[in-house]
């Protein structure tokens, strides 16, 4: 079964500390994975996708097929990073996304 698991509902760190938001997936094929972010009072938006191997706002995510993980990392968290983060897996030919339950990141001053 296709599934995305984000084990942490809430992650609280201090400004300047490293942050890692965990994401594990279950998928039989070659996965396409995304991280979406929702800042307070804003709409859900794409943060990054694994196929482009980019770094957005200092965040990176590496696909580890052996561990079936796609953890989101940032070496030095900023207060403006506080938001809800969703890991998502592209589910197949119809293009539907399978979302994790989300992790709320709180960066304290």
């Amino acid at each position, binding site marked *: 079964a296709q599934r995305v698991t984000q084990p942490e509902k809430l992650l609280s760190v201090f400004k300047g500390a490293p942050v890692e938001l965990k994401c594990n997936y279950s998928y039989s094929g070659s996965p396409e994975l995304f991280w979406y972010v929702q800042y307070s009072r804003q709409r859900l938006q794409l943060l990054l996708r694994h196929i482009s191997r980019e770094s957005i706002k200092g965040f990176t995510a590496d696909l580890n097929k052996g561990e079936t993980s796609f953890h989101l990392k940032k070496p030095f968290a900023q207060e403006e990073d506080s938001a809800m983060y*969703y890991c*998502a897996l592209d589910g197949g030919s119809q293009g539907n*996304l399978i979302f994790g339950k989300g992790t709320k990141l709180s960066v304290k001053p």
Partner: protein
Amino acid sequence: SQTIHQWPATLVQPVGSPLSLECTVEGTSNPNLYWYRQAAGRGLQLLFYSVGIGQISSEVPQNLSASRPQDRQFILSSKKLLLSDSGFYLCASGGPNYGYTFGSGTRLTVV
């Protein structure tokens, strides 16, 4: 770039009343359209998707239905709302090759 208009932002409806949530897309033609719901304490769940006018696929059995009367219009409906229909509903457009754009969502509370 695509823009999704979704309304209303919040809605409080009594049990048994009908529902109509509308979503329109700008900046693209013949988009794939999706309705997602996030119930309290749960992740985003795909409800319906549409690859064209009049073409609707349902992912989960439920009290809701969807229609696509025009290329860039996607409507989520119910004839009689249940308490369990409460949640946050998101309209989205896009696909695997070029990503997804989301609307601002509708928070529905059924009382």
